[in-house]
């Protein structure tokens, strides 16, 4: 058995990101309920006999006197204030004035950013009271839930002391950062377990949804391996342990006020968002910031004062989960907008149409979106749906003495990407005709492993045969180094080193496959095409004009047609490519911060400016990768950090529900989704994501609920048996339709895995209000709550 005493003796250092201490200390107060106290080793032959999956230790817990929290009171706070008094630019915004943070100063329009922020915050408060607008003010709450990915966190690891290497296999959304964190633990010179190399084999995880992004599980696995005398250890959380230790969605308390003028235009929004981050910071600092940024949902609102804060508590740690703060904030605004429409006797979709954010209007931070947002078409399509246009007659005909029927709508707008998006991709064509992709994307149930092999088809005439996700180590050929810099000047200085990038590898997060990861994969494939396949084909076809031009080529039935007359087989081209030692593999790094990084690379005799910042090439069949030195690198401007994010996907959801008058049980009867995803890479995956999100959102809306502390999952007694998750029985079989809005030419594929969950809970709440006349503002809307309200 290993405890905190062993860690202290051996000078183990917990990386800052993962909290103060990994293990509760005997005789001291733990940081949170459920914090591990020891690593217990069991021989594998005995383990299965113990019935370890059934271990529920919660009944052995004895509580002492109430104690205060050891954690800092806040993990982070954000204030997004914006004032735009009519046509023209903002008087104050994050993009104009920079981020404001406490301690707050006295209001002063000519003062510092903080003083100006307070001034405009006060001005908005005054205007709310004096402009004669219709005010709507309510309090909302959302609950703590578990992502409940099907495969619990698990892994195997061993420590090779002779070679100072730590070897790990596990499923993670953030393998690069996990490996770095595991190395940091043992970095102290006094630590008797030096680790020079961490080899982390990231295998395909059984779901993730955010819960495997910077989880502390890999750290416990690393520690267990270090103390195992070179033997391999295996940790498999049983489901009780996964509930106890796994990252949760932040519960939120939201106090929100909106002001609408007589035309139904939202003039101001004031919001106070408090998230419970639990016992460790994890991603709380970021989730609260994203909640604030996206609190305006799909709308342009000229006056904003949004305060968001993530608090610490004794609950199990909250972190990343699909929707990432946005889901909580949008539940509040989409419910409130619906309530306003009802009071103003306006069609709720018409009211939304009057307030849409578009590419020409600034987001909450004052930034302009980089691509058009077709929310209007989403709303018009929903409005034209029979389910919406005939909702009153459906309500009348389908309600009866036992059931109340109602139709509700909600619109969500969610950014994709983090604006710090570092992607790694490698595309190789082999002499046997296979196309292989390696990249740092992870498929956590979001479809990346299915869609990314398809995105090269127009370039290489085929989908990839082999797709390896979660790759980090193989990209060591790029010899990258990264550091966080705090100014443009510092970044410029660092960028003189051709190996420096702001970040090496992002975690799989923020719906980043369709745009960010696709870009990296396509850039690598494009280099292989232009410097490998094209010259090989020209040689083979004895084509004298060898200047590459995409208009000269066409893929037909697996053959390359050049200039409409030279038809060359894939197999022959690849054999020639490998025989001649032409480019057969490209490995790239890309970085997106509201713009792509760019650099010049000399490939052969040509110098090209490419939207990548590191490149290594493989020639023919033998040998490794040759690293190219970039020149004239242009990293995206440092000031783009203030933009927050710049790309958005809109999704509208119509739902019909029935409410059992006696039991209060709500049933989802029908649903229609409307989405602008830009170019569709794979329709079935888009529809599958939307349907999956409908089920996941249904659980959040109606069923799932975890107590935060006493009686909660931290005690170790929770499993799916007492935590209702939606099943096929709860879904509207044959009654879910997804409508895809036609893409604007030139629009890229847009990330969509998160946005599709965001409108589910407010759409259901709005449908229940339509059915019953009662508004429910606290999730979940359980049968007991509905029954109580109808009594």
């Amino acid at each position, binding site marked *: 058995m290993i405890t905190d005493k062993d860690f202290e003796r051996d000078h183990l250092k917990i990386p800052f990101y993962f909290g103060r201490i990994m293990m509760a200390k005997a005789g001291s107060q733990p940081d949170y309920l459920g914090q591990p106290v020891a690593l217990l080793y069991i021989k594998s032959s005995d383990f299965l006999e113990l019935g370890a999956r059934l271990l529920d230790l919660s009944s052995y817990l004895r509580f002492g006197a109430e104690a205060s929290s050891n954690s800092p009171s806040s993990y982070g706070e954000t204030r997004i204030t914006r004032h735009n008094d009519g046509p023209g630019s903002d008087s104050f915004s994050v993009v104009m004035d920079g981020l404001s943070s406490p301690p707050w100063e006295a209001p002063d329009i000519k003062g510092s950013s903080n003083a100006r922020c307070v001034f405009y915050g006060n001005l908005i408060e005054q205007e709310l009271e004096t402009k004669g607008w219709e005010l709507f003010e309510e309090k909302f709450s959302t609950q703590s839930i578990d992502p409940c990915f099907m495969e619990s966190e698990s892994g195997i690891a061993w420590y090779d002391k002779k070679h100072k290497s730590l070897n790990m296999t596990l499923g993670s959304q953030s393998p690069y950062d996990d490996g770095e964190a595991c190395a940091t633990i043992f970095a102290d010179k006094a630590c008797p377990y030096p680790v020079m190399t961490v080899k982390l084999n990231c295998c395909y995880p059984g779901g993730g949804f955010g819960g495997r992004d910077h989880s502390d599980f890999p750290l416990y696995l690393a520690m267990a391996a270090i103390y195992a005398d070179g033997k391999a250890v295996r940790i498999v959380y049983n*489901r009780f342990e996964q509930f106890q230790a796994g990252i949760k969605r932040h519960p939120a308390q939201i106090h929100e006020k909106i002001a609408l003028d007589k035309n139904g235009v939202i003039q101001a929004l004031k919001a106070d968002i408090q998230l419970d981050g639990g016992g460790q910071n994890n991603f709380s600092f970021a989730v609260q910031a994203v909640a604030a940024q996206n609190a305006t949902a799909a709308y342009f609102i000229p006056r904003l004062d949004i305060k968001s804060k993530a608090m610490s508590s004794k609950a199990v740690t909250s972190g990343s989960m699909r929707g990432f703060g946005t889901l909580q904030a949008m539940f509040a605004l989409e419910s409130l907008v619906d309530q306003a429409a009802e009071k103003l006797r306006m069609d709720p979709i018409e009211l939304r149409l009057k307030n849409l954010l578009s590419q020409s209007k600034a987001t909450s931070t004052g930034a302009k979106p980089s691509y058009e947002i077709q929310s209007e078409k989403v709303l018009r399509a929903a409005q034209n749906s029979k389910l919406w246009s005939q909702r009153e007659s459906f309500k009348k005909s389908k309600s009866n003495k036992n059931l109340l029927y109602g139709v509700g709508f909600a619109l969500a707008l969610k950014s994709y990407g983090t604006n710090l998006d570092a992607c790694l991709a490698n595309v190789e064509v082999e002499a046997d005709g296979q196309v292989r992709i390696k990249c740092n994307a992870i498929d956590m149930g979001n479809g990346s492993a299915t869609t990314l092999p398809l995105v090269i088809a127009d370039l290489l005439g085929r989908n990839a045969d082999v797709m390896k996700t979660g790759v980090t180590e193989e990209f060591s050929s790029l010899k990258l180094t990264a550091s966080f810099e705090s100014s443009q000047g510092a970044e410029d200085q660092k960028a003189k080193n051709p190996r420096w990038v702001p970040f090496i590898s992002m975690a799989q997060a923020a719906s980043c496959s369709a745009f960010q990861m696709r870009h990296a994969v396509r850039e690598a494939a494009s280099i292989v095409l232009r410097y490998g396949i094209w010259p090989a084909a020209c040689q083979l076809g004895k084509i004298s004009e060898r200047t590459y031009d995409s208009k000269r080529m066409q893929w037909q039935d697996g053959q390359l047609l050049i200039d409409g007359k030279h038809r060359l087989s894939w197999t022959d081209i690849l054999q020639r490519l490998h025989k001649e030692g032409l480019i057969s593999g490209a490995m790239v790094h890309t970085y997106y911060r509201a713009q792509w990084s760019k650099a010049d690379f000399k490939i052969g005799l040509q110098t090209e400016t490419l939207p990548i910042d590191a490149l290594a090439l493989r020639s023919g069949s033998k040998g490794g990768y040759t690293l190219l030195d970039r020149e004239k690198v242009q990293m995206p401007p440092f000031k783009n950090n203030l933009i927050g994010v710049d790309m958005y996907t809109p999704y509208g959801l119509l739902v019909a529900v029935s409410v059992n008058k006696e039991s209060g049980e709500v049933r989802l009867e029908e649903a229609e989704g409307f989405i602008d995803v830009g170019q569709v890479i794979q329709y079935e*995956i888009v529809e599958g994501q939307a349907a999956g999100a409908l089920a996941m959102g249904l659980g959040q809306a109606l069923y799932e609920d975890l107590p935060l502390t006493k009686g909660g999952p931290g005690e170790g007694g929770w499993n799916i048996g007492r935590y209702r998750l939606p099943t096929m029985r709860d879904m509207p079989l044959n009654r879910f339709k997804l409508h895809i809005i036609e893409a604007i030419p030139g629009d890229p594929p847009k990330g969509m895995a998160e946005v599709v969950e965001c409108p589910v809970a407010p759409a259901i709440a709005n449908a229940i209000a339509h059915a019953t006349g009662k508004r429910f503002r606290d999730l979940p809307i359980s049968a007991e709550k509905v029954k109580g309200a109808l009594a």
Partner: protein
Amino acid sequence: MSDKVQIKLKLNNADLLEQVSPTLMLADFLQESKNLTATRVCCGIGVCRACTVAVKHSAQESFEATRACITPVVSLDGATIKTTEGLAEADQLHPLQEAFLKNFSFQCGYSTSGFLMGAYSLLDKLRLAPVSADKIDEAILEGVGDNICRCTGYLRYYTAIKEVILATPGLVLQS
């Protein structure tokens, strides 16, 4: 630890004679002793049905969807067990597997084996007791309606299973 017990099994068409502990669950037996890793464990308490396999206790019966995580392997003495690894024949995927692929039924794939074996047991049941076309949805819910999946929203599993039921002769009563 407990004394081991000798049992006979037919596992994916192979006859086995095994010495097993009375506390050993079928899921662990498959994964740890037989390296049959398609059978997944999620909740470990028999609720989510990710670990579903098909078990038949006599030649006259149909296969029953059985939760491997809570079924002691000793309770299966003399039984026939089919897991996902035993579905394909001579490299020909089972129609359910083909239909799952064609319909993009799964995403992360962790629940897929449970859906396959639940649906396989359902097909076998319908073979002995066909239903009318209007009862197919009810039958599908009976077969896999309690299986949990977190990625898909179930709709593409449902579509694939229904397709196979309708395409397999003898499962649906002719009106």
